[in-house]
């Protein structure tokens, strides 16, 4: 095989594996549990790492994750969560939720998962846009100073849809 054809072949191969039609990922985070926050953050960060644009719209209980005073105190739900394989009655006992959260955080730390506050900094530095939902911010009577400094603004869902106005954009509700 000649040198040129080796090069041509490998270049085609490289292009094939790098190609994705996803250009932008928009996430709506509506829940305030720690696992939902991490799901959104890992996917949004993963998108940026692949050269895909990403943005997160925080609404309803998702706003807990961008409130300065609350973001490091997110928990996992031990009641009504069958995946924890714990009797519902037990999950409701005092301290159980805190213990489950502590164990989860410990495991995440082992995998070098950043805490929520640091993760938000990473996302912001990586160029991921972070938006608060106007309606929910009003509903919970939140002020600008309650929210993280990295927030890009408080916008309406209409504004957010406007940001989806290009080919290859995907919206994901969490």
């Amino acid at each position, binding site marked *: 095989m000649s040198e040129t054809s080796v090069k041509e072949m490998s270049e085609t191969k490289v292009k094939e594996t790098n190609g994705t039609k996803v250009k932008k990922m928009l996430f709506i985070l509506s829940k305030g549990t720690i696992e939902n926050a991490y799901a959104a953050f890992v996917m949004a960060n*993963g998108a940026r790492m692949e050269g895909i644009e990403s943005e997160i719209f925080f609404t309803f209980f998702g706003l807990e994750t961008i409130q300065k005073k609350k973001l490091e105190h997110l928990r996992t739900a031990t009641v009504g969560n069958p995946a924890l394989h714990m009797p519902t009655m037990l999950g409701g006992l005092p301290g159980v939720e805190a213990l489950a959260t502590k164990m989860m955080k410990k495991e995440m730390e082992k995998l*070098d998962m950043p805490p929520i506050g640091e993760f938000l900094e*990473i996302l912001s*530095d990586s160029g991921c846009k972070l938006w608060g939902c106007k309606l929910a911010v009003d509903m919970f009577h939140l002020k600008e100073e309650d929210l993280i400094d990295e927030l890009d603004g408080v916008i309406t869902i209409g504004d957010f849809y406007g940001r989806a106005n290009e080919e290859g954009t995907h919206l994901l509700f969490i």
Partner: protein
Amino acid sequence: MKKIIADREIDVNEEGYLVDFNQWDKDVCAYLADEQGISMTDKHWEVIEYLQDKHHKEEPLSIRGIKKSGVINIKEFYSLFPGGPLKKSTLIAGIPKPKSCI
């Protein structure tokens, strides 16, 4: 798989990452960077050396690690290697693509 890089035949995997680090040198590095549309500056070299050092110490690479590195911050990292910084910088550095999701 073989690929002609800087007038030499280099072993790469299907994503274009070098299989044998011994085949890497600054010419190969500059060639790979050029293919990614990156022209190497002193800061680029500094980052490449940091990544290689981490790899040789068998420490996993992550974006959090970059933040803590003291070599470069995340914003600069994204601007030096646009469009998938860790993916591109490891390719240029001749080390495997990080498998981590973070």
